[in-house]
């Protein structure tokens, strides 16, 4: 390959490089630095190589948190994707209903995450919460998310679905609106059923936005921290201790910077790996040469 005689253009990349360095590369290097040292105090540290990695990879609490995290993200995707699409399909296509629906649906997305946790604490309290008190006193079903594992999971899932399904719904709605009317007209003329129209027109045309929704929901739910931390604090027991909650416990509450660094990097690699796999898989969906 021929070399460019003048390479000054590279200098134009410099500002971006500096910004990215401060926002991402330097913090990441610090984490890597921590992850290979045992830090006793300021200025006192010992190089330990891969010891923290081995320790964290063998930590049964991390394993538990990881499986919990997969279960959580899996449920999130399983519920929010179909539900979001369903909501988008049911939304009005024109008239005053459109802005009304859009704003109502988008509301949960505008609330600060800590506030969401607080809202749900109050909402599900067995003594005064609308939901909690209603379950206990009106329906006679005992419900207490601070005491019972299943109740805690139900509450966390409800909160997550309430908070983030709107994002999927809005993306799916945008995708649906972008389909030209002629496709629906052609489908009617071809005698396609509502189901065929959905499978052969709407779903394929929504693939782009749904891929984005899927990846966003996977990453966000895998990294979730504030809402369950506020709502359950990881309990009862460790039953809702997700990876990020466990990580904060190690790195900031116990101040184990080395294991915390190693944990962070393992966490990062897992998210990156799965996002990559999902992206590749979703790109291939519906592109096979089928007869």
């Amino acid at each position, binding site marked *: 390959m021929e070399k460019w005689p003048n390479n000054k253009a590279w200098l134009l990349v410099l500002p971006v490089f500096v910004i990215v360095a401060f926002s991402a590369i330097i913090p990441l290097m610090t984490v890597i630095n921590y992850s290979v040292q045992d830090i006793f105090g300021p200025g006192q540290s010992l190089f330990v190589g891969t010891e923290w990695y081995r320790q964290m990879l063998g930590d049964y609490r991390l394993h538990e948190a990881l499986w919990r995290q997969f279960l959580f993200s899996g449920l999130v995707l399983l519920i929010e994707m179909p539900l979001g699409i369903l909501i988008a399909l049911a939304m009005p296509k024109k008239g005053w209903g459109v802005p009304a629906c859009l704003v109502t649906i988008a509301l949960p997305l505008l609330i600060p995450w800590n506030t969401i946790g607080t809202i749900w604490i109050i909402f599900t309290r067995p003594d005064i919460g609308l939901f909690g008190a209603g379950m206990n006193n009106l329906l006679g079903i005992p419900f207490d998310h601070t005491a019972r594992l299943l109740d805690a999971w139900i509450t966390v899932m409800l909160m997550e679905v309430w908070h983030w399904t709107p994002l999927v719904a809005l993306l799916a709605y945008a995708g649906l609106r972008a389909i*030209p009317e*002629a*496709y629906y*007209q*052609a489908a*009617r*003329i*071809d*005698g*396609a*059923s509502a189901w*065929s129209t959905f499978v*052969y*027109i709407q779903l*394929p*045309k929504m693939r782009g936005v749904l891929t984005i929704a899927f990846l966003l929901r996977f990453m966000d739910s895998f990294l979730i921290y504030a809402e369950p931390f506020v709502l359950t604090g990881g309990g009862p027991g460790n039953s809702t201790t997700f990876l990020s909650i466990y990580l904060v416990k190690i790195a900031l509450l116990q101040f184990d910077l080395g294991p915390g660094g190693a944990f962070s990097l393992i966490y990062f690699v897992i998210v990156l790996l799965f996002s990559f796999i999902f992206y590749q898989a979703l790109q291939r969906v*519906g*592109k096979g*040469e*089928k*007869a």
Partner: protein
Amino acid sequence: MARVELNEVAHSYLPKPKQPSDYALKRIHNVWEDGTACALLGPSGCGKTTLLNIVSGLLVPSRGRVLYDGKDVTASPPEKRNIAQVFQFPVLYDTMSVFNNLAFPLRNRGMGETQVKERVLEIAEILDLTPFLQKRAAGLAADAKQKISLGRGLVRSDVAAILFDEPLTVIDPQMKWHLRRKLKEIHERLKLTFIYVTHDQVEALTFADQVAVMFEGEIVQIGSPQDLFENPEHRFVGYFIGSPGMNFLECTVEGTVAQVDGTSIVLNEETAAKASKAKGKLEVGIRPMYLEVHAESADNRVEAKVRMVEDLGSYKIVTLKLAGNTLKASLPEDQPVPEGRAWLAFPLQWTRLFDDGWLIK
């Protein structure tokens, strides 16, 4: 196959239309005979697509009835009408192969797989799509995609009519010509009723046996391409068909002579007699190719100034100034164009008179 009849059809997109301008289609009363290739020609916004959607059943007209072979189908949805429609942009089922795309309308109607295969292969052969059958439809060129859209209509043996809504808009010029010939060939072979909407006069005139020219929600004239060219019944037909369009000169009629800003143009006696009863704005109309341009003065010739000559290779377009009016004449390549001044002759049989846009006959 069917005879498509529109009975006093009018349509408005407003829920409660009041005045005529609220109507996208004013009054359409028309019959397309079985097996004809018809074109609907008109500028954008004249109601062509509205009319087509009424025929296909995507729209229910505000007034009037649609009849297929005498049967009232006004209230039937498109899937019950046995029609096929090809849209401006190719509409495909992206995730399916070409074969499945073509088979889709048949499978939706519950046809057995062996028959589906037989029928799809037959139509693919006609459309030259056989080599692509197992390919995914999304990856093909625009003209192949448009052929698939057409094929989805052709596979249905019960199809009454095929409607085309400016189907060649997204096709490259070279392929346009090719595809147009293919359409013509298919029409001759299958003898289906084709209704073809376009704003391109070349497309309409080469494709159709019968062209309906639409203007502001009305069909102003229906006829063969030759008819439309030689005997435009409305000012708009004269202007819209032919390149350049017909010349129009505002005039008053005295005896058998039309007065245009002080110059006299001799008219056919019969026409002139009828013109005396006309109440609207009178205009003399003549096609550029029939307007004679001479270098010398003679009887019944009027003087004009030559403003511009455009040589288009096989013919020349001369822009002339007659009193305050601009005229265009198209002359054969070998005829010299007089410089500065010219004398125009208006041959009697090609000089028309229009009253408020409508031909006096």
